[in-house]
């Protein structure tokens, strides 16, 4: 109980803050649907890119929201204040996980519905696995977001990290070219990027491409990324410096 002290108040606060911020809420709910619609209008065979859109969106948005959310906590001094309260660090991080996890779930539903409606996506291996992948991807992004926010002095810099942290993953992670076809010096970096496994998992779940083993590898890798990035996040928010 003491281990997770503060979890529920923090999760509740994260969600209240989002509710108080209408524009962000719009960004979370409306924009993914809008972009999926645009994709459906541009691509003649949108089903070939659908799984990538589904994979990258939640990851990307969770990263932005947590990086900026946590940065604001740091710069406004609320983080320090929460740490002065009877809260455990793991409770604080778990609160974030719950709050943003719920948000990621809502976003996954938006993506799911708009994917089915605009892109005629069918799920070869079931919707449950889709949600599991989305959630693991979001939690990994959450950990990365918290970590990156530590290196950013302001919101502008947190956004500036996108080309460094997110874009290479999207370019190399099997989006444009299968990872195994990359030159060897790019293949290895791609193998340690979460988005690679997110795309690999979605290929299996949405397109039915690859073996069951590929899915297990993807889930295992994302699970490991989640654990590592949340562990790093808990260390990052340590009380005393």
């Amino acid at each position, binding site marked *: 109980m003491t281990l997770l002290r503060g979890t529920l108040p923090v999760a509740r606060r994260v969600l209240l*803050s*989002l509710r108080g911020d209408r524009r962000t809420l719009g960004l979370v709910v409306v924009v993914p649907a809008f972009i999926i619609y645009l994709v459906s209008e541009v691509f003649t065979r949108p089903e070939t890119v659908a799984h990538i859109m589904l994979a990258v969106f939640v990851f990307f948005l969770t990263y932005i929201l947590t990086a900026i959310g946590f940065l604001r906590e740091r710069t*406004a001094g609320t983080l320090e204040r929460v*740490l*002065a*309260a009877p809260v455990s660090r793991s409770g604080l991080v778990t609160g974030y996980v719950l709050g943003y996890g719920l948000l990621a779930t809502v976003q996954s539903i938006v993506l799911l519905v708009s994917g089915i409606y605009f892109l005629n996506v069918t799920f070869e291996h079931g919707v449950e696995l889709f949600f599991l992948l989305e959630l693991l991807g979001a939690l990994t992004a959450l950990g990365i977001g918290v970590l990156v926010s530590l290196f950013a002095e302001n919101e502008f810099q947190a956004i500036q990290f996108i080309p460094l942290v997110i874009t290479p993953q999207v370019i190399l992670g099997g989006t444009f070219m299968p990872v195994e076809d990359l030159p060897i010096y790019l293949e290895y970096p791609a193998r340690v990027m979460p988005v690679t496994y997110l795309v690999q998992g979605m290929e299996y779940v949405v397109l039915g491409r690859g073996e069951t083993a590929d899915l297990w590898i993807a889930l295992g890798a994302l699970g490991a990324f989640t654990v590592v990035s949340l562990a790093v996040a808990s260390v990052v928010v340590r009380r005393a410096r």
Partner: protein
Amino acid sequence: MSAPDVSISVTDLRREFGSVTALDGVDLDVDGPRIVGVAGPNGAGKTTLIRVLLGLLSPTAGSSRVRATDSLSLKAEDRERIGYMSQDEAVYRDLTVRENVDFFARLYRVADRATAVDRAISFVGLSDRADDRVSDLSGGMIRRTSLACALVHDPDVLILDEPTVGLDPQLRATMWDAFRERRDDGALILVSTHYLGEATRCDEVLFLRNGRVLAYDAPERFLEETGTDDLEDAFLALLERDGEPPDADDEGATEGVFA
């Protein structure tokens, strides 16, 4: 029920940030309900001292204890009895006043939360703005929201970092009345300020300069000892006695901030 432990004890505390020494061997022992002012110009080490006390910074050397527990190993039970208001805004702008205070009440697991939240909000005189978003409030109101968050769990040890900055004189007077009320109820209040005029309102004042304790005594004793009429002059007299002529920073501070 025995009286709660309200004590703060600091022993030979040092804290360095790279080549800068923010605290240079600070000692302080306070036990029992009273208002202790931590005064000194900007950069004297007031905030560093407060952050070390709360276990938010680890000391380079020496130690600090709050409620007889080392700051770095304060348990949840200890933290429940401590209130903290930082120099930063430290409230959530996207939330209303009530939501902010309620969030901290939940963190501190306040019993009968609704009543406690209402009481804290009315204490800082924001009842009629309770459901306004913080981003719609003036600077002074934001400070008061922050104070309400620090008070909602009725702490025994209250640590306030420049709580009255940016407040108008009337409001400042109200806040000091509030602090005295808390003290009379048995709380120990440590309050930092760079307005020396305010320090006279404390029971005891710790003068910090360049991370060192210049003096620690009751305000009236300072005046007596230095033969001065106000704490500003007393501070300058103490500096001279210390063999250190006030430097340019202090001059600026005395004219501008200490005025």
